[in-house]
Protein backbone atom coordinates (compact mmCIF):
# COMPACT_ATOMS: atom_id res chain seq x y z
CA UNK A 1 0.00 0.00 0.00
CA UNK A 2 1.24 3.47 -0.85
CA UNK A 3 1.62 5.64 2.23
CA UNK A 4 3.19 8.75 0.77
CA UNK A 5 2.94 9.94 -2.78
CA UNK A 6 4.30 12.93 -4.68
CA UNK A 7 2.71 13.91 -7.98
CA UNK A 8 4.54 16.26 -10.31
CA UNK A 9 6.10 18.25 -7.46
CA UNK A 10 7.80 21.47 -8.40
CA UNK A 11 9.31 24.17 -6.23
CA UNK A 12 10.75 27.47 -7.43
CA UNK A 13 12.53 30.02 -5.29
CA UNK A 14 12.77 33.69 -6.14
CA UNK A 15 11.67 35.25 -9.40
CA UNK A 16 8.14 36.11 -10.45
CA UNK A 17 5.48 33.48 -10.78
CA UNK A 18 6.22 31.31 -13.79
CA UNK A 19 9.62 32.63 -14.77
CA UNK A 20 13.04 33.61 -13.53
CA UNK A 21 13.24 31.61 -10.30
CA UNK A 22 15.57 28.82 -9.27
CA UNK A 23 13.91 25.46 -9.76
CA UNK A 24 14.91 23.44 -6.69
CA UNK A 25 12.53 20.56 -7.33
CA UNK A 26 11.46 19.81 -10.88
CA UNK A 27 8.52 17.55 -11.70
CA UNK A 28 9.16 14.90 -9.04
CA UNK A 29 6.76 12.00 -8.72
CA UNK A 30 7.31 9.11 -6.35
CA UNK A 31 5.44 6.67 -4.15
CA UNK A 32 6.63 5.38 -0.79
CA UNK A 33 5.14 2.05 0.23
CA UNK A 34 4.08 1.34 3.80
CA UNK A 35 6.80 -0.43 5.82
CA UNK A 36 9.64 0.19 3.39
CA UNK A 37 12.78 2.27 3.64
CA UNK A 38 12.83 4.65 0.72
CA UNK A 39 16.21 6.32 0.30
CA UNK A 40 16.67 9.69 -1.29
CA UNK A 41 20.21 10.15 -2.53
CA UNK A 42 21.90 13.20 -3.97
CA UNK A 43 24.74 15.67 -3.57
CA UNK A 44 24.48 19.16 -2.16
CA UNK A 45 22.22 21.35 -4.26
CA UNK A 46 20.40 18.36 -5.72
CA UNK A 47 17.13 19.44 -4.12
CA UNK A 48 16.77 16.60 -1.66
CA UNK A 49 16.26 18.86 1.33
CA UNK A 50 13.61 20.92 -0.48
CA UNK A 51 11.88 17.75 -1.62
CA UNK A 52 11.88 16.50 1.97
CA UNK A 53 10.24 19.72 3.17
CA UNK A 54 7.62 19.44 0.46
CA UNK A 55 6.88 15.84 1.40
CA UNK A 56 6.34 16.90 5.02
CA UNK A 57 4.27 19.83 3.77
CA UNK A 58 6.54 22.26 5.58
CA UNK A 59 6.34 24.41 2.44
CA UNK A 60 3.81 24.85 -0.36
CA UNK A 61 4.85 23.41 -3.71
CA UNK A 62 4.83 25.72 -6.74
CA UNK A 63 3.01 22.94 -8.56
CA UNK A 64 2.01 19.35 -7.93
CA UNK A 65 0.74 17.67 -4.82
CA UNK A 66 1.64 15.42 -1.89
CA UNK A 67 -0.69 12.68 -0.76
CA UNK A 68 -0.43 11.00 2.62
CA UNK A 69 -2.49 7.86 2.91
CA UNK A 70 -4.43 9.00 -0.15
CA UNK A 71 -5.19 12.47 1.21
CA UNK A 72 -3.98 15.56 -0.64
CA UNK A 73 -2.16 17.71 1.95
CA UNK A 74 -2.60 20.96 0.04
CA UNK A 75 -6.38 20.90 0.32
CA UNK A 76 -6.51 20.32 4.08
CA UNK A 77 -7.67 22.82 6.65
CA UNK A 78 -5.21 23.44 9.53
CA UNK A 79 -7.00 21.12 11.96
CA UNK A 80 -7.06 18.30 9.44
CA UNK A 81 -3.44 18.92 8.55
CA UNK A 82 -2.46 18.61 12.20
CA UNK A 83 -4.10 15.18 12.30
CA UNK A 84 -2.04 14.03 9.34
CA UNK A 85 1.11 15.70 10.61
CA UNK A 86 1.25 13.64 13.76
CA UNK A 87 1.58 10.56 11.61
CA UNK A 88 4.69 11.93 9.91
CA UNK A 89 7.73 12.85 11.96
CA UNK A 90 11.28 13.87 11.20
CA UNK A 91 14.77 13.25 12.61
CA UNK A 92 17.37 15.78 11.53
CA UNK A 93 21.08 15.43 10.92
CA UNK A 94 22.43 17.53 13.71
CA UNK A 95 21.16 16.49 17.12
CA UNK A 96 22.98 19.48 18.63
CA UNK A 97 20.97 22.15 16.87
CA UNK A 98 17.64 20.35 16.79
CA UNK A 99 17.11 20.52 20.55
CA UNK A 100 16.48 23.46 22.78
CA UNK A 101 19.54 23.48 25.07
CA UNK A 102 17.49 24.88 27.96
CA UNK A 103 14.90 22.13 27.95
CA UNK A 104 15.25 18.92 29.92
CA UNK A 105 15.13 15.61 28.06
CA UNK A 106 11.71 14.90 29.45
CA UNK A 107 10.28 18.09 27.94
CA UNK A 108 12.11 17.59 24.65
CA UNK A 109 10.71 14.12 24.14
CA UNK A 110 7.27 15.10 25.42
CA UNK A 111 6.93 18.22 23.31
CA UNK A 112 5.06 16.59 20.40
CA UNK A 113 2.65 15.02 22.90
CA UNK A 114 2.00 18.32 24.62
CA UNK A 115 1.47 19.99 21.26
CA UNK A 116 -0.90 17.41 19.85
CA UNK A 117 -2.64 16.03 22.95
CA UNK A 118 -4.17 18.67 25.22
CA UNK A 119 -4.82 16.02 27.90
CA UNK A 120 -1.10 15.83 28.60
CA UNK A 121 -0.89 19.48 29.63
CA UNK A 122 -1.00 20.82 33.16
CA UNK A 123 -0.21 19.09 36.45
CA UNK A 124 -2.40 16.08 35.92
CA UNK A 125 -1.07 15.49 32.43
CA UNK A 126 2.52 15.72 33.55
CA UNK A 127 2.48 12.65 35.75
CA UNK A 128 1.41 10.38 32.92
CA UNK A 129 3.84 12.12 30.63
CA UNK A 130 6.89 11.00 32.56
CA UNK A 131 5.90 7.36 32.22
CA UNK A 132 5.31 7.77 28.51
CA UNK A 133 8.68 9.51 28.04
CA UNK A 134 10.31 6.73 30.06
CA UNK A 135 8.88 4.14 27.67
CA UNK A 136 10.04 6.09 24.65
CA UNK A 137 13.55 6.45 26.04
CA UNK A 138 13.57 2.75 26.81
CA UNK A 139 12.60 2.02 23.20
CA UNK A 140 15.70 3.87 21.97
CA UNK A 141 18.01 2.27 24.51
CA UNK A 142 18.28 5.14 26.97
CA UNK A 143 17.66 4.73 30.72
CA UNK A 144 14.59 6.52 32.06
CA UNK A 145 16.78 8.37 34.61
CA UNK A 146 18.12 10.71 31.94
CA UNK A 147 14.79 12.59 31.87
CA UNK A 148 15.95 15.39 34.13
CA UNK A 149 19.16 16.08 32.29
CA UNK A 150 19.97 18.61 29.56
CA UNK A 151 21.09 17.99 25.95
CA UNK A 152 24.69 19.13 26.52
CA UNK A 153 25.22 16.26 28.95
CA UNK A 154 24.96 13.71 26.16
CA UNK A 155 27.18 12.52 23.33
CA UNK A 156 26.14 12.92 19.70
CA UNK A 157 24.87 9.36 19.49
CA UNK A 158 22.83 9.68 22.69
CA UNK A 159 21.33 12.94 21.48
CA UNK A 160 20.34 11.31 18.23
CA UNK A 161 18.62 8.57 20.26
CA UNK A 162 16.72 11.27 22.12
CA UNK A 163 15.70 12.84 18.77
CA UNK A 164 14.41 9.47 17.66
CA UNK A 165 12.44 9.05 20.89
CA UNK A 166 10.86 12.46 20.28
CA UNK A 167 9.99 11.47 16.71
CA UNK A 168 8.27 8.33 17.99
CA UNK A 169 6.23 10.08 20.68
CA UNK A 170 3.07 10.31 18.59
CA UNK A 171 3.26 6.78 17.14
CA UNK A 172 3.89 8.04 13.63
CA UNK A 173 3.55 5.84 10.57
CA UNK A 174 6.18 7.69 8.57
CA UNK A 175 9.54 8.99 9.78
CA UNK A 176 11.70 11.15 7.56
CA UNK A 177 15.34 10.61 8.50
CA UNK A 178 17.39 13.47 7.10
CA UNK A 179 21.07 12.40 7.21
CA UNK A 180 20.44 10.86 10.65
CA UNK A 181 23.97 9.52 11.13
CA UNK A 182 26.11 11.93 9.11
CA UNK A 183 27.32 13.84 12.15
CA UNK A 184 28.18 10.72 14.13
CA UNK A 185 31.34 8.68 14.56
CA UNK A 186 31.31 5.50 12.54
CA UNK A 187 30.97 3.14 15.51
CA UNK A 188 28.05 5.19 16.84
CA UNK A 189 26.53 5.36 13.37
CA UNK A 190 26.42 1.57 13.23
CA UNK A 191 24.54 1.46 16.55
CA UNK A 192 22.01 4.09 15.50
CA UNK A 193 21.39 2.31 12.19
CA UNK A 194 20.78 -0.93 14.10
CA UNK A 195 18.36 0.87 16.39
CA UNK A 196 16.45 2.34 13.44
CA UNK A 197 16.15 -1.06 11.77
CA UNK A 198 14.95 -2.60 15.01
CA UNK A 199 12.33 0.12 15.57
CA UNK A 200 11.10 -0.22 12.01
CA UNK A 201 10.46 -3.93 12.50
CA UNK A 202 8.81 -3.52 15.88
CA UNK A 203 6.63 -0.54 15.02
CA UNK A 204 6.05 -1.18 11.31
CA UNK A 205 7.47 2.23 10.45
CA UNK A 206 7.93 3.63 6.98
CA UNK A 207 11.21 5.50 6.49
CA UNK A 208 12.20 8.14 4.00
CA UNK A 209 15.97 8.05 4.45
CA UNK A 210 17.81 11.06 3.05
CA UNK A 211 21.55 10.57 2.71
CA UNK A 212 24.61 11.34 0.68
CA UNK A 213 26.38 8.25 2.02
CA UNK A 214 25.78 5.47 -0.49
CA UNK A 215 27.40 2.79 1.63
CA UNK A 216 24.95 3.54 4.44
CA UNK A 217 22.04 3.70 2.00
CA UNK A 218 22.93 0.28 0.67
CA UNK A 219 22.69 -1.12 4.19
CA UNK A 220 19.26 0.26 4.92
CA UNK A 221 17.27 0.95 1.75
CA UNK A 222 14.63 -1.15 0.06
CA UNK A 223 14.33 1.32 -2.79
CA UNK A 224 16.47 4.25 -3.88
CA UNK A 225 15.70 7.49 -5.65
CA UNK A 226 18.67 9.38 -7.10
CA UNK A 227 18.29 13.15 -7.32
CA UNK A 228 20.29 15.51 -9.47
CA UNK A 229 19.60 19.18 -10.20
CA UNK A 230 16.09 18.97 -8.82
CA UNK A 231 15.04 15.94 -10.85
CA UNK A 232 14.67 12.30 -9.96
CA UNK A 233 17.08 10.55 -12.30
CA UNK A 234 16.08 7.04 -11.38
CA UNK A 235 14.04 5.16 -8.82
CA UNK A 236 14.38 1.46 -8.25
CA UNK A 237 14.98 -1.44 -5.90
CA UNK A 238 18.25 -0.86 -4.03
CA UNK A 239 19.95 -3.97 -5.37
CA UNK A 240 19.15 -3.01 -8.94
CA UNK A 241 20.29 0.61 -8.68
CA UNK A 242 23.57 -0.47 -7.13
CA UNK A 243 24.22 -3.33 -9.51
CA UNK A 244 23.10 -1.80 -12.77
CA UNK A 245 22.53 1.94 -12.50
CA UNK A 246 20.63 3.20 -15.50
CA UNK A 247 22.00 6.68 -15.35
CA UNK A 248 25.54 7.88 -16.00
CA UNK A 249 25.37 10.22 -13.01
CA UNK A 250 24.43 7.38 -10.67
CA UNK A 251 27.38 5.42 -11.96
CA UNK A 252 29.79 8.30 -11.33
CA UNK A 253 28.33 8.71 -7.84
CA UNK A 254 28.93 5.03 -7.09
CA UNK A 255 32.43 5.17 -8.56
CA UNK A 256 33.35 8.08 -6.33
CA UNK A 257 32.62 6.27 -3.06
CA UNK A 258 35.90 5.42 -1.32
CA UNK A 259 36.32 1.71 -0.83
CA UNK A 260 37.47 0.79 2.69
CA UNK A 261 39.58 -2.02 1.26
CA UNK A 262 42.98 -0.88 0.06
CA UNK A 263 43.26 -3.86 -2.28
CA UNK A 264 40.18 -2.72 -4.17
CA UNK A 265 40.72 1.03 -3.96
CA UNK A 266 40.60 2.59 -7.39
CA UNK A 267 43.26 5.23 -6.82
CA UNK A 268 45.72 2.70 -5.52
CA UNK A 269 45.17 0.42 -8.49
CA UNK A 270 45.90 3.29 -10.82
CA UNK A 271 49.29 3.68 -9.11
CA UNK A 272 50.24 0.01 -8.72
Amino acid at each position, binding site marked *: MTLLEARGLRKEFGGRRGHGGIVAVDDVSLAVEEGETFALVG*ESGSGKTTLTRLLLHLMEPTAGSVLFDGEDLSGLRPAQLRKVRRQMQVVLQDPYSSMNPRMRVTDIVAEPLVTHEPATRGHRGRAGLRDRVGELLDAVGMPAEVQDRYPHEFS*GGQRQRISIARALALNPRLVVLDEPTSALD*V*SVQAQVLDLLADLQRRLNLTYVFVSHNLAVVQQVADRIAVMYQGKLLEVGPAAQVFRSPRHEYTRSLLD*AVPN*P*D*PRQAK*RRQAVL
Partner: protein
Amino acid sequence: MKPLLSIEELSVDFRLDTETVHAVDRVSFAVEEGETLAVVGESGSGKTATALSVLRLNPEPPCVYSGGRVVLGGRDVLTVSEKDLRGIRGNEVAMIFQDPMSSLNPLKRVGVQIGEVLRRHQGATRAEARQAVLPALREAGISDAERRAGQYPHQLSGGLRQRVMIAMALIGRPKVLIADEPTTALDVTVQAQILDLLADLGQRHGMAIVLITHDLGVVAEVADRVVVMNRGEVVETGDVLELFDHPAQEYTRALLRATPKLELT
Protein backbone atom coordinates in the same frame (compact mmCIF):
# COMPACT_ATOMS: atom_id res chain seq x y z
CA MET B 1 65.30 7.28 4.12
CA LYS B 2 65.35 10.11 6.62
CA PRO B 3 61.91 11.24 7.72
CA LEU B 4 60.87 14.79 6.82
CA LEU B 5 58.75 15.01 9.94
CA SER B 6 59.07 13.00 13.08
CA ILE B 7 56.87 13.28 16.10
CA GLU B 8 58.49 11.81 19.18
CA GLU B 9 56.59 11.01 22.36
CA LEU B 10 54.41 14.07 21.92
CA SER B 11 52.06 14.91 24.78
CA VAL B 12 49.56 17.73 24.64
CA ASP B 13 47.42 18.75 27.58
CA PHE B 14 44.50 21.12 27.75
CA ARG B 15 44.42 22.76 31.18
CA LEU B 16 40.81 23.71 31.80
CA ASP B 17 39.35 25.35 34.90
CA THR B 18 38.30 22.14 36.56
CA GLU B 19 40.47 19.48 34.96
CA THR B 20 43.39 18.72 32.69
CA VAL B 21 42.60 16.81 29.53
CA HIS B 22 45.42 14.73 28.10
CA ALA B 23 44.45 15.24 24.48
CA VAL B 24 47.63 13.68 23.09
CA ASP B 25 49.51 11.12 25.11
CA ARG B 26 53.06 10.08 24.08
CA VAL B 27 52.32 9.91 20.38
CA SER B 28 55.14 9.00 17.98
CA PHE B 29 55.22 8.64 14.22
CA ALA B 30 57.31 9.79 11.26
CA VAL B 31 56.66 10.58 7.61
CA GLU B 32 59.10 10.27 4.75
CA GLU B 33 59.44 12.09 1.47
CA GLY B 34 56.66 11.22 -0.97
CA GLU B 35 54.76 9.27 1.64
CA THR B 36 51.12 9.68 2.65
CA LEU B 37 50.50 8.84 6.26
CA ALA B 38 46.90 8.71 7.49
CA VAL B 39 46.06 9.45 11.11
CA VAL B 40 42.70 7.84 11.78
CA GLY B 41 40.45 8.23 14.75
CA GLU B 42 36.98 9.12 15.97
CA SER B 43 36.05 12.42 17.56
CA GLY B 44 38.09 13.08 20.67
CA SER B 45 40.88 10.73 19.61
CA GLY B 46 43.45 13.56 19.61
CA LYS B 47 44.14 13.42 15.89
CA THR B 48 43.51 17.10 15.26
CA ALA B 49 45.42 18.23 18.36
CA THR B 50 48.34 16.16 17.07
CA ALA B 51 48.07 17.71 13.61
CA LEU B 52 47.92 21.25 14.97
CA SER B 53 51.01 20.58 17.09
CA VAL B 54 53.09 20.19 13.94
CA LEU B 55 52.56 23.90 13.27
CA ARG B 56 52.26 24.74 16.98
CA LEU B 57 48.78 26.01 16.28
CA ASN B 58 46.96 24.69 19.33
CA PRO B 59 45.69 27.67 21.33
CA GLU B 60 48.00 28.35 24.30
CA PRO B 61 46.44 28.56 26.84
CA PRO B 62 44.58 26.27 27.45
CA CYS B 63 46.97 24.03 25.52
CA VAL B 64 50.32 23.04 27.03
CA TYR B 65 52.88 20.99 25.13
CA SER B 66 53.80 18.88 28.11
CA GLY B 67 56.26 16.51 26.52
CA GLY B 68 58.02 15.20 23.46
CA ARG B 69 59.28 16.78 20.26
CA VAL B 70 58.07 17.61 16.76
CA VAL B 71 61.16 17.49 14.56
CA LEU B 72 61.02 19.20 11.22
CA GLY B 73 64.14 19.99 9.19
CA GLY B 74 66.34 19.19 12.19
CA ARG B 75 64.54 21.60 14.53
CA ASP B 76 62.00 21.02 17.28
CA VAL B 77 58.95 23.06 16.31
CA LEU B 78 57.82 23.17 19.93
CA THR B 79 60.89 25.09 21.12
CA VAL B 80 61.82 27.42 18.23
CA SER B 81 61.26 31.17 18.49
CA GLU B 82 58.11 32.82 17.13
CA LYS B 83 60.21 34.26 14.32
CA ASP B 84 61.62 30.90 13.29
CA LEU B 85 58.14 29.45 13.56
CA ARG B 86 56.91 31.90 10.90
CA GLY B 87 59.70 30.67 8.64
CA ILE B 88 58.70 27.06 9.21
CA ARG B 89 54.98 27.59 8.66
CA GLY B 90 54.22 27.83 4.98
CA ASN B 91 57.75 26.95 3.89
CA GLU B 92 58.49 23.64 5.56
CA VAL B 93 55.01 22.63 6.57
CA ALA B 94 51.56 23.85 5.50
CA MET B 95 48.08 22.83 6.50
CA ILE B 96 44.64 22.58 4.94
CA PHE B 97 41.45 22.26 6.94
CA GLN B 98 38.03 20.69 6.68
CA ASP B 99 36.11 23.89 6.18
CA PRO B 100 37.80 26.14 3.63
CA MET B 101 35.19 28.87 4.07
CA SER B 102 36.24 29.57 7.63
CA SER B 103 39.94 29.57 6.75
CA LEU B 104 39.58 32.14 3.97
CA ASN B 105 39.11 35.87 4.43
CA PRO B 106 35.65 36.65 3.06
CA LEU B 107 36.62 40.26 2.27
CA LYS B 108 39.63 39.61 0.06
CA ARG B 109 39.88 38.25 -3.46
CA VAL B 110 41.36 34.77 -3.36
CA GLY B 111 44.29 35.71 -5.60
CA VAL B 112 45.39 38.37 -3.11
CA GLN B 113 45.07 35.93 -0.20
CA ILE B 114 47.23 33.35 -1.92
CA GLY B 115 49.88 35.97 -2.70
CA GLU B 116 49.93 37.08 0.92
CA VAL B 117 51.34 33.73 1.94
CA LEU B 118 54.48 34.38 -0.08
CA ARG B 119 54.79 37.95 1.10
CA ARG B 120 54.45 37.00 4.72
CA HIS B 121 56.44 33.80 4.85
CA GLN B 122 59.10 34.41 2.19
CA GLY B 123 59.28 38.20 2.09
CA ALA B 124 58.25 38.27 -1.57
CA THR B 125 57.39 41.60 -3.18
CA ARG B 126 53.87 42.38 -4.29
CA ALA B 127 54.84 41.79 -7.93
CA GLU B 128 56.56 38.49 -7.21
CA ALA B 129 53.59 37.31 -5.24
CA ARG B 130 51.19 38.29 -8.02
CA GLN B 131 53.23 36.36 -10.55
CA ALA B 132 53.15 33.19 -8.49
CA VAL B 133 49.39 33.17 -7.88
CA LEU B 134 48.09 32.00 -11.26
CA PRO B 135 50.51 29.06 -11.60
CA ALA B 136 49.59 28.02 -8.06
CA LEU B 137 45.87 28.06 -8.87
CA ARG B 138 46.48 26.06 -12.06
CA GLU B 139 48.55 23.54 -10.18
CA ALA B 140 45.63 23.08 -7.80
CA GLY B 141 43.55 22.11 -10.82
CA ILE B 142 41.67 25.37 -11.29
CA SER B 143 41.24 25.84 -15.03
CA ASP B 144 40.16 29.48 -15.46
CA ALA B 145 42.71 30.76 -12.97
CA GLU B 146 42.60 34.44 -14.05
CA ARG B 147 38.89 34.75 -13.38
CA ARG B 148 38.98 32.76 -10.14
CA ALA B 149 41.86 34.81 -8.73
CA GLY B 150 39.64 37.88 -8.93
CA GLN B 151 36.72 36.28 -7.11
CA TYR B 152 35.74 36.27 -3.45
CA PRO B 153 35.44 33.03 -1.44
CA HIS B 154 31.64 33.13 -1.35
CA GLN B 155 31.55 33.05 -5.16
CA LEU B 156 33.26 29.66 -5.22
CA SER B 157 31.87 26.18 -4.64
CA GLY B 158 33.13 24.06 -1.75
CA GLY B 159 35.40 22.08 -4.05
CA LEU B 160 36.91 25.21 -5.59
CA ARG B 161 37.46 26.73 -2.16
CA GLN B 162 39.36 23.65 -1.09
CA ARG B 163 41.46 23.92 -4.26
CA VAL B 164 42.21 27.56 -3.36
CA MET B 165 43.30 26.39 0.10
CA ILE B 166 45.55 23.81 -1.53
CA ALA B 167 47.05 26.45 -3.83
CA MET B 168 47.66 28.61 -0.79
CA ALA B 169 49.23 25.76 1.15
CA LEU B 170 51.53 24.70 -1.66
CA ILE B 171 52.70 28.06 -2.98
CA GLY B 172 55.56 28.12 -0.45
CA ARG B 173 56.63 24.63 -1.63
CA PRO B 174 56.38 23.00 1.80
CA LYS B 175 58.00 19.63 2.29
CA VAL B 176 55.19 18.45 4.55
CA LEU B 177 51.47 19.00 4.08
CA ILE B 178 49.04 18.43 6.94
CA ALA B 179 45.53 17.84 5.63
CA ASP B 180 42.91 17.79 8.40
CA GLU B 181 39.72 16.15 7.08
CA PRO B 182 40.23 17.91 3.74
CA THR B 183 37.26 16.26 2.02
CA THR B 184 34.81 15.72 4.87
CA ALA B 185 32.65 18.72 3.97
CA LEU B 186 32.62 17.91 0.26
CA ASP B 187 30.29 15.91 -1.94
CA VAL B 188 31.55 12.46 -2.76
CA THR B 189 32.33 13.18 -6.43
CA VAL B 190 34.24 16.34 -5.44
CA GLN B 191 35.99 14.43 -2.67
CA ALA B 192 37.29 11.97 -5.25
CA GLN B 193 38.74 14.82 -7.32
CA ILE B 194 40.45 16.44 -4.34
CA LEU B 195 41.95 13.11 -3.22
CA ASP B 196 43.27 12.61 -6.76
CA LEU B 197 44.76 16.08 -6.71
CA LEU B 198 46.49 15.57 -3.35
CA ALA B 199 47.90 12.20 -4.42
CA ASP B 200 49.16 13.71 -7.66
CA LEU B 201 50.78 16.73 -5.99
CA GLY B 202 52.36 14.56 -3.32
CA GLN B 203 53.98 12.40 -5.96
CA ARG B 204 55.12 15.22 -8.19
CA HIS B 205 56.80 17.22 -5.47
CA GLY B 206 57.90 14.36 -3.25
CA MET B 207 55.90 15.96 -0.49
CA ALA B 208 55.09 14.09 2.71
CA ILE B 209 51.36 14.23 3.42
CA VAL B 210 49.82 13.68 6.83
CA LEU B 211 46.13 13.04 6.25
CA ILE B 212 43.90 13.39 9.30
CA THR B 213 40.60 11.60 8.80
CA HIS B 214 37.84 9.59 10.41
CA ASP B 215 37.03 7.82 7.12
CA LEU B 216 38.67 4.45 6.57
CA GLY B 217 37.45 4.54 2.97
CA VAL B 218 39.57 7.61 2.33
CA VAL B 219 42.49 5.95 4.11
CA ALA B 220 42.23 2.86 1.94
CA GLU B 221 42.20 5.02 -1.17
CA VAL B 222 45.26 7.16 -0.55
CA ALA B 223 47.41 6.20 2.45
CA ASP B 224 50.72 4.36 2.40
CA ARG B 225 50.85 3.95 6.14
CA VAL B 226 48.27 4.36 8.88
CA VAL B 227 48.32 5.51 12.50
CA VAL B 228 45.18 4.62 14.44
CA MET B 229 44.45 6.87 17.42
CA ASN B 230 41.99 6.54 20.28
CA ARG B 231 41.70 8.67 23.44
CA GLY B 232 44.90 10.53 22.72
CA GLU B 233 47.05 7.45 22.23
CA VAL B 234 48.37 5.60 19.23
CA VAL B 235 46.54 2.29 19.11
CA GLU B 236 48.50 0.84 16.23
CA THR B 237 50.68 1.84 13.30
CA GLY B 238 51.28 -0.06 10.11
CA ASP B 239 51.49 -0.36 6.37
CA VAL B 240 48.01 0.19 4.92
CA LEU B 241 47.59 -3.28 3.40
CA GLU B 242 48.96 -4.96 6.49
CA LEU B 243 46.73 -2.95 8.81
CA PHE B 244 43.54 -3.58 6.87
CA ASP B 245 44.37 -7.28 6.36
CA HIS B 246 45.62 -8.02 9.85
CA PRO B 247 44.58 -5.36 12.34
CA ALA B 248 46.47 -6.17 15.52
CA GLN B 249 44.25 -4.32 17.97
CA GLU B 250 40.61 -4.88 18.85
CA TYR B 251 39.88 -1.16 18.50
CA THR B 252 41.10 -1.16 14.91
CA ARG B 253 39.07 -4.26 14.16
CA ALA B 254 35.94 -2.64 15.60
CA LEU B 255 36.52 0.48 13.53
CA LEU B 256 36.90 -1.61 10.37
CA ARG B 257 33.77 -3.60 11.18
CA ALA B 258 31.71 -0.46 11.73
CA THR B 259 32.74 1.11 8.42
CA PRO B 260 30.00 0.56 5.86
CA LYS B 261 31.23 -0.74 2.55
CA LEU B 262 29.56 -0.36 -0.82
CA GLU B 263 29.10 -3.74 -2.50
CA LEU B 264 28.68 -3.46 -6.23
CA THR B 265 28.72 -7.10 -7.29
